[in-house]
């Protein structure tokens, strides 16, 4: 494999990925017909997904350095640069984003009937901002993309959502915004220490211990709200339940990853000392999130709420893996992030499919539809098994790695979170059993149609990934291995330096 291309040379692939959705959105603004709009957005997102594939082929997994670099002057007065680049972790997340977007368009084909144009524009703007977050190597550029997601996402929830959509949208907006204000202060403080907003320049600097603690606290608040970690999770069920299917999928598959990605990109390499200080507390919160998410999901009768609370549990595994601070933990965490994107995204699409047919998400109302929609039930069964980390599916690999990492970190902690895995089996099988078979008092469902071609096309790619990652995870682990090792080194090595530094 050749070495990574030099800075600013060749096609600026990342910029193309970031800005082509905006161009597509501008194109969508000129289209009048709703039918044409759907096809246009589907075509654009598919093309963007195809364009993102060369990232995978040309990525050099042997190095931990950022690749596909672009670096331009942007606002010299504030020392802000337009700097992009990806490493093994962001590569996977960028691909997840670009590949999931066409499925979001497909999932909202029938669901969205009003203001189709605005909906598609919001989706495309979201894509642009999400890819931007994962590619940005300048702190302010990151922050701008981070905040740029707020408005379109709030609109997705607030305009096309369910009955309490406005409440959910406002709550989502305020939570995220409140979290990010201190993120900005921390970034400015780092900029004044290092002289620029460059993320790489901020990493591995000998900051004083107290400074690190404060910066970490500001970061962690912002990212913990985004993940969301217990006890900052309360916006999530509201947002998930009210959002339209595509909104839920974006929220679950990509937006929640921003929080964990932030931990990996900011907290660990920039404030390693503080990471070690805070890790036990964050591990405890992760364990609480896993158990809390599991128990709460067990008690839900609304399908979407059930999946939403299962998200809290799954993301608990991701943060658990991050803060055990060893290679298998972090690799497992990244895999959990990807898997959660695939599986939970698929589950939300499944719930959306049920809702489109029954106009309710009530578990008892959906009881026993399996008899009439065998194809759908097949898909749902696989995704449920994947969600409970059944061996052979993707989540098994991720959670196994996380638990292995956690076991070598603390046996007690691992024993505490293992019931979470059992809970996942309990709530998922409960849902699957009810939906597929139900009981003696099933509502009459014989008029329900099985999946049509479009819906199969929506779910099939996700099914492929469930088994691909489940049976052959090596390429994914390989892509991020060097990056993760480098990250571990950054967390481990900076400690003595930080301890020796003068605050």
């Amino acid at each position, binding site marked *: 494999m050749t070495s990574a291309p030099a800075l600013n040379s060749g096609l600026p692939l990342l910029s193309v990925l970031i800005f082509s959705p905006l161009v597509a959105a501008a194109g969508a603004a000129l289209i009048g017909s709703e039918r044409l709009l759907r096809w246009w957005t589907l075509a654009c997102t598919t093309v963007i997904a195809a364009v993102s594939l060369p990232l995978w082929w040309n990525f050099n997994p042997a190095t931990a350095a950022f690749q596909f670099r672009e670096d331009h002057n942007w*606002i010299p007065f504030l020392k802000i640069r337009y700097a992009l680049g990806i490493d093994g972790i962001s590569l996977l997340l960028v691909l997840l984003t670009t590949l999931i977007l066409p499925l979001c368009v497909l999932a909202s084909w029938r669901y969205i009937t009003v203001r189709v144009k605005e909906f598609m524009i919001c989706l495309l703007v979201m894509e642009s901002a999400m890819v931007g977050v994962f590619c940005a190597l300048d702190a302010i550029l990151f922050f701008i993309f981070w905040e*740029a997601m707020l408005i379109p996402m709030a609109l997705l929830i607030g305009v096309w959502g369910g009955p309490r959509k406005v409440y959910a949208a406002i709550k989502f907006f305020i939570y995220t915004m409140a979290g990010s204000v201190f993120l900005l202060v921390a970034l400015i403080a780092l900029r004044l220490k290092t002289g620029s907003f460059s993320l790489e320049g901020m990493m591995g600097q000998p900051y004083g211990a107290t400074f690190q603690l404060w910066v970490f606290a500001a970061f962690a608040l912002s990212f913990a709200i985004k993940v969301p970690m217990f006890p900052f999770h309360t916006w999530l069920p509201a947002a998930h339940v009210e959002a339209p299917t595509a909104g839920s999928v974006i929220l679950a598959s990509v937006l929640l990853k921003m929080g964990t990605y932030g931990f990996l990109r900011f907290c660990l390499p920039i404030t390693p000392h503080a990471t070690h200080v805070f890790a036990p507390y964050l591990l405890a919160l992760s364990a609480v999130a896993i158990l809390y998410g599991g128990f709460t999901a067990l008690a839900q009768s609304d399908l979407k709420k059930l999946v939403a609370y299962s998200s809290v549990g799954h993301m608990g595994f991701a943060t658990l893996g991050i803060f055990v601070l060893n290679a298998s933990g972090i690799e497992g965490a990244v895999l959990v992030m990807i898997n959660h994107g695939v599986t939970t995204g698929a589950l939300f699409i499944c719930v959306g499919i049920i809702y489109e047919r029954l106009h309710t998400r009530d578990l008892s109302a959906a009881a026993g539809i399996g008899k009439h929609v065998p194809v759908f039930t097949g898909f749902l069964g696989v995704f449920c098994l994947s969600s409970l980390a059944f061996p052979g599916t993707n989540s098994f690999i991720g959670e196994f790695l996380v638990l292995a990492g956690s076991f070598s970190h603390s046996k007690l902690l691992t024993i505490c979170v293992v019931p979470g895995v059992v809970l996942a089996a309990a709530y998922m099988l409960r849902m699957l059993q009810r939906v597929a078979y139900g009981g003696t008092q099933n509502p009459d469902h014989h008029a329900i149609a099985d999946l049509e071609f479009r819906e199969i096309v929506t779910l099939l790619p996700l099914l492929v990934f469930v088994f691909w990652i489940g049976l052959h995870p090596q390429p994914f682990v390989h892509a991020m291995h060097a990056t993760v090792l480098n990250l571990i080194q950054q967390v481990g090595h900076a400690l003595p330096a930080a301890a020796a530094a003068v605050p």
Partner: protein
Amino acid sequence: MTLSFLQAFLPELVVLLGGLALFFVTLGESRAALARGVALATAVVALLAAVFCLRSTGVLFSGAYRVDAFSQILKVVLSAGFLAIVLLSGRLPDVRERIQPEYFLFLTISVAGLLMLVSCVDILALVIALECSSFPLYLMVPMRREREGQRSQMESAIKYIMFGVAANGIMLFGLSYLFGLTGTTSLPLMAAQLQPVLGSPLTIAGLGLAFCGLYYKLAVFPFHFWTPDVYQGASNETASLIASLPKIGAVAVLARLVSLAAPDQGTVALLLTVLAIASMLYGNLIALVQTDFKRLLGFSGIAHAGYTVVGFVTLSEAGFASSLYYITGYMLMVLACFVVISRVSRDGTNVAIEELAGLHRRSPLLALTLIVGVFGLAGLPPFVGFLGKLSILTAALAKGHLLLVVVTMVNAAIAVYYYLRVVREAIFGDPLANAAPIRLDTPTRILCVALVVAIVALGVAPATVIDALSQSIAGLNLPVAGVTP
């Protein structure tokens, strides 16, 4: 000599000539349309002249008046704002047709005062320019039509005059101290002569009092009391003027006056810190419970004045440049909100936040303008409000004002809530039963698009503007720390 004199002074001359023409128009009977045309032409020509004179330099009127990059950039901003306000004013539905020529005359004179204000480097000229920009406003507030349930214009006009005159009196008193200490009215000389006595209580008292006149213009605590009442009492168009242009002038003069305090002994920075925090907290907390959109903008304006003062606390060129950049962005954002107010309003009455309900159905362009303006005020990227806050906070943190920065960010978070209330009505709400679609005329459409583009452009590609501002500040040779923090 004469030619360069003319060239340096061209934008002011254009506006003054426009004012003269408007004066003759007022002598006739019911010439509202003509007056509107003259005002529009004046604004367009003034903007062109300001752009044309962007690179002029010169010292006029025996050193009392300096034309440099700083003043010329602000003249472009002010004339652009003038043009926006004339376009926004439209047919002035809430001012009686018979007195509309006078309205435009006062508007033009006030802008002329502001154009002169940014060039004044002598405190006497400065006070005169300040009064010249203030007095027409005192008259424009009560020109609103009286009707059932709308009689507060006189009250707010009286409040505006009383506070204005009192603030100006205090300012003059402070300036008299400074004159007594230095024996000169020229600001550059004053700055040099104040250096030996900078720490003395008399200097600090003089400076502190001299700032008051500008606090009043900018609506900084404790000179803010007029703001919500005047916004509510004045017609929408007048409020849009009061909310935008004078603040730019105030910030420009504040940059000159605050720099007198450098190198700071801590007292002036402390004073400004306290006022900034008080303004932000007061404005934001009270804005939370407002129901009238103009009152909300009034209180949010107090908070934004607080953010602007944060830039001055730094006593650095970077801070001053950030404040100027911020207030320029603020002008655009608040004008965007006022365009929406004056077009949503029925016959020029005040607009409650509920009346914005379903604006996205009644007029998508207005809804877009509102969303951009309001989210910009809330400080969200990619709008100018975000970069403005970022540069102010960077400058403040560079000088070690951590507490102030944290308080500012907490305030920004509080403010999001009331801005979201506006957005919630406009975007998520359904139109009221009797609300018809709003038809916009072409000038309004142009204005909306221009404001949206400017707010986004200044937020995404601010390098040119912010560099020009910081270089112009550096060109003033203020006795403060350099541009790079």
